[in-house]
């Protein structure tokens, strides 16, 4: 037909077809899911990433340390502060310093608010995947607004804060922040109860997501699942607990796990984690110590290397920074959580029978973020 074949595609058996979900499709986002199906049963799934590769790792090599924070935030716009936290944590290890305690508490507050914002979005999309029903998505979008306002009050921006910097945070808590935060927490807790009532406990939603996309415990570890996807399979692992950073060591919270490992469990773990996040914010606001919020650092990092990990909303992110003593990093390597989570769906048709309608449900239960995976 005059169209050049870009890739060699293997011949399929009779009666099968290869359906390309994305990159232009209501659910795909900036990637592509190739599904081999006979119309209802799914035989193979292939994930095609790289549509939005921006070379963030390379960009970081050309910027002085503190300027690297801004492009890094573009990995996940919804979940920016954990990513900058990871970079800052690696840098602080490289410099051999620690931020003052008050800065650690402010960091914790931002990180948990970001987790709530990211989880509400993920849950809204998860609801849409079981039915094209934007009600829950729009409710969650409206209900994260108090937290966005709080973050704007604190950092000056609704999305990309660039607030966590090596040595501390940029600014102190403004006047009236505490009261507004307690009010927002009270409001959001009520709204979460509404979600659980109207949607998580909804019979038809449970029918659609129970026993769909089950990842057993051993497979979750073997395939490298991260974050809520890992914890829903019964693995009690959370970087906030196992390698504490910010003020998590001094705060009392528990890791949410589920044993069934299906899509419903992954959604449920996210909802319960939001309750935990609210508790953490409350504790941090009550126990926040007085003192400085920042210590100044020299522009040039001492030569050496550092690895840091941080629990983002999508799971554990790892960053490896190498310095050769200049004011820019020699090399930065990022290992994002979505890269591991997105590919879990490729393994599922090999161990269980999937229907075509299950593909979006499983895909969104993993909270995929192609921009995160592409970097």
């Amino acid at each position, binding site marked *: 037909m005059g169209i050049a074949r870009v890739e060699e595609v293997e011949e399929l058996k009779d009666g099968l077809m290869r359906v390309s979900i994305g990159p232009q499709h209501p659910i795909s986002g900036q990637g592509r899911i190739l599904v081999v199906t006979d119309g*209802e049963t799914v035989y193979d799934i292939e994930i095609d990433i790289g549509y939005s590769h921006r070379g963030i790792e390379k960009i970081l090599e050309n910027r002085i340390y503190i300027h690297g924070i801004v492009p890094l935030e573009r990995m996940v716009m919804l979940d920016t502060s954990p990513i900058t936290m990871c970079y800052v944590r690696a840098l602080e290890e490289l410099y051999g310093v620690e931020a003052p305690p008050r800065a650690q508490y402010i960091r914790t507050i931002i990180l948990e608010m970001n987790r709530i914002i990211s989880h509400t979005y993920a849950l809204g999309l998860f609801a849409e995947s079981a039915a*094209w029903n934007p*009600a829950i998505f729009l409710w969650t979008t409206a209900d994260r607004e108090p937290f966005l306002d709080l973050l704007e009050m604190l950092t000056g921006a609704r999305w990309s804060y660039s607030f966590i910097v090596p040595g501390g945070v940029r600014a102190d808590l403004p006047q009236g922040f505490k009261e507004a935060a307690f009010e927002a927490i009270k409001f959001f807790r009520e709204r979460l109860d509404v979600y659980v009532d109207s949607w998580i406990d909804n019979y038809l939603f449970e029918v659609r997501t129970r026993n769909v996309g089950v990842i057993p415990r051993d497979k979750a570890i073997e395939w490298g699942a991260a974050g809520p996807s890992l914890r829903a399979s019964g693995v009690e692992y959370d970087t906030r607990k196992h390698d504490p950073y910010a003020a998590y060591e001094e705060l009392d919270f528990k890791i949410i796990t589920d044993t069934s490992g299906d899509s419903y469990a992954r959604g449920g773990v996210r909802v319960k984690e939001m309750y935990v996040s609210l508790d953490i914010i409350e504790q941090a606001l009550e126990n926040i110590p007085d003192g400085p919020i920042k210590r100044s650092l020299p522009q040039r990092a001492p030569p050496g290397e550092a690895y840091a990990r941080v629990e983002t909303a999508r799971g554990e992110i790892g960053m490896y920074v190498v310095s050769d003593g200049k004011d820019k990093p020699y090399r930065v390597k990022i290992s994002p959580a979505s890269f591991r989570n997105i590919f879990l769906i490729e393994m599922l048709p090999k161990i269980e029978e999937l229907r075509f309608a299950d593909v*979006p449900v499983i895909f969104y239960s993993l909270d995929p973020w192609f921009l995160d995976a592409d970097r």
Partner: protein
Amino acid sequence: MYLQIDELIRFVEANFDIIFKIAIFPGIAFIFGFLIFAVWYERKFLARLMVRMGPVHAGKVMGWLQLIADAIKLITKEFIVPRFTLRSLFFLLPILLPVIPAAMVVLIPFGPGFILYNAMGNGLILFLALSTIYPVLNMLTGWVSNNKFTIIGAFRTIYLDVAAEIPLILSIIGVVIMAGTYDLVGIVEAQSNMWFIIPQILGFIVFFIGYLGMTERVPMDFPVAEVELVFGIKTEYSGPLYLLLMEADYVNWLAWSLLMVVLYLGGYNGPNILGNPVYSGIFWTLFKLLIVLTIVLIIKIGYARLRVDQAVRMGWKYLIPLAVINLVLTILIKYILNIYQ
């Protein structure tokens, strides 16, 4: 040659009743007007439930001008026909599709004596016969488009038909036994004392779920499941042809909702509030129709979509036995009543 106006006027005056019914209500103008109203109502009502405003900018009052703008947009768009389609059917089917449900609407009595065509007392039979054509044409629409998504949507239309239509018709037989007639007017008259939703509550549950399937509404809307199939059988259509397909969808919804009103909700029975029994009959029919539409929209917000296998399993495992139980109970009640009468 010129038009003989006098003769025309005389003809219209002599047949005003039937011409009004064909052209205005419940004929062409009502069916197209319903599309405009239903789209507007669905948009605004769903927007309220979703904590947003819906269209407001075009048209000061409730965004009414937005519908006109959308219609102009759709009508003036280019005809896009994908390669390797059956061009003749691709153009023919969207024109054919709205006709079937429109013919179903024609059989519905709106008020005492206000009916366009009563099919010689076999309105219900003709209604169900026409309704069986609709899924087949729907399936063909998906098949001629030559697209993977539309093909899957076409298969799903047939699965849905299998899951929903058989229990639906079984549940309707209960109503026919209660009323003792296939005539829709007779069925409405039989409900003048008690609506059939009370004695036929089991049958109504089955009918309602089957109705959601036949009208492709949540939770049985998997033929147009956007999350996986983009837009199901309608994926390849755009512009005026898409408008016709949308019209078919909404008129189908209208026809089945009216059938529910007639079979279970007492049809035009109601207090004579407008003075004239015909006008108040029409009012009650449309009022009950609005309530049915609202309930369907609330279900659309509150529930997830069933999977194909789950819907078929529900239809054959639960709905058909329930419909049969309802049928047996109806026959028993009817028998006992006949003994004591």
